[in-house]
């Protein structure tokens, strides 16, 4: 069975969007979270773990999420697996941040 991340030769692929894309702040943050957690200095996650977490996203999520959204979903999963944070803590924090954004 072909898995969703194994894209080589995937049927139905269209033209490539070659537009340059300036990374948004939250995308830089997603990258920085991964690089910091995976740095030899911290060693909290390994890149192979991150890949495993990305590759085991449900297919519809893998297809619909953007690149760094997949990373965030994967980091969240790893942090929960490692019992560093709970999903409830993240949900609660998201709610707090949401209020701050409302100004």
């Amino acid at each position: 069975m072909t898995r969703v991340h194994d894209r080589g030769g995937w049927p139905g692929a269209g033209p490539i969007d070659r537009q340059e894309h300036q990374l948004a702040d939250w995308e830089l943050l997603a990258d920085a979270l991964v690089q910091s957690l995976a740095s030899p200095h911290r060693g909290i996650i390994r890149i192979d773990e991150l890949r495993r977490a990305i590759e085991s996203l449900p297919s519809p999520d893998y297809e619909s999420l953007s690149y760094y959204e997949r990373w965030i979903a994967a980091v969240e999963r790893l942090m929960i697996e490692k019992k560093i944070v709970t999903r409830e803590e993240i949900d609660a924090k998201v709610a707090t941040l949401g209020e701050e954004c409302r100004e």
Partner: protein
Amino acid sequence: MSQGHGHGHDEHAPIRHDGHSSPLARRARALEALLTEKGVLTPADIRSAIDALVSRTPADGAKLVARAWVDPAFKARLLADPKAAAAELGIDLTSYARLGVVENTDKVHHVVVCTLCSCYPRMLLGPPPAWYKSLNYRARTVADPRGVMREFGLELPPKVEVRVLDSTADMRYLVLPRRPPGTEHVSEAELRSLVTRDSMIGVSNPQPERAHV
């Protein structure tokens, strides 16, 4: 707020550029807050990682390529042992995954993809462009490399053999592109400016500087 489900190929739609449009963007902020509150990471960790990301460019890759163009002995060393050759130019790659350097000639042309994810020689080229990470590039480059290169404006003669290299987390590739014709008297410093990121991925060839009209 929509998650944008059902737009599988539309990975870089403008709506995603707005930090507030994606629920996942908020979750990244929440993770940042929690991980720093708990002392798992420091704000300095995150800051320096962002700094490293935004300051890295294809300049080091271009430096290696330009030196290889002017110095055949260096080129041989670069192809044989890329990390040792890079160290000669003060580029330290010791902490990175294995690196392969492959040479494009008039007989063989290499192009690099990562079908499984987005593996890329960041240490030499900076962060990968969005298209490199796109599902379409990942799908098509191994199946129809000439068609992909055509979209980038590169039409290779049929007699040129095309080799596609699929990167992995443990093995990254840098393409040593062909030196543009008519640049025999161009200085190494000027040659560096001709070496484009895309030519080091293999989807295009470097062009000679435009002649004065």
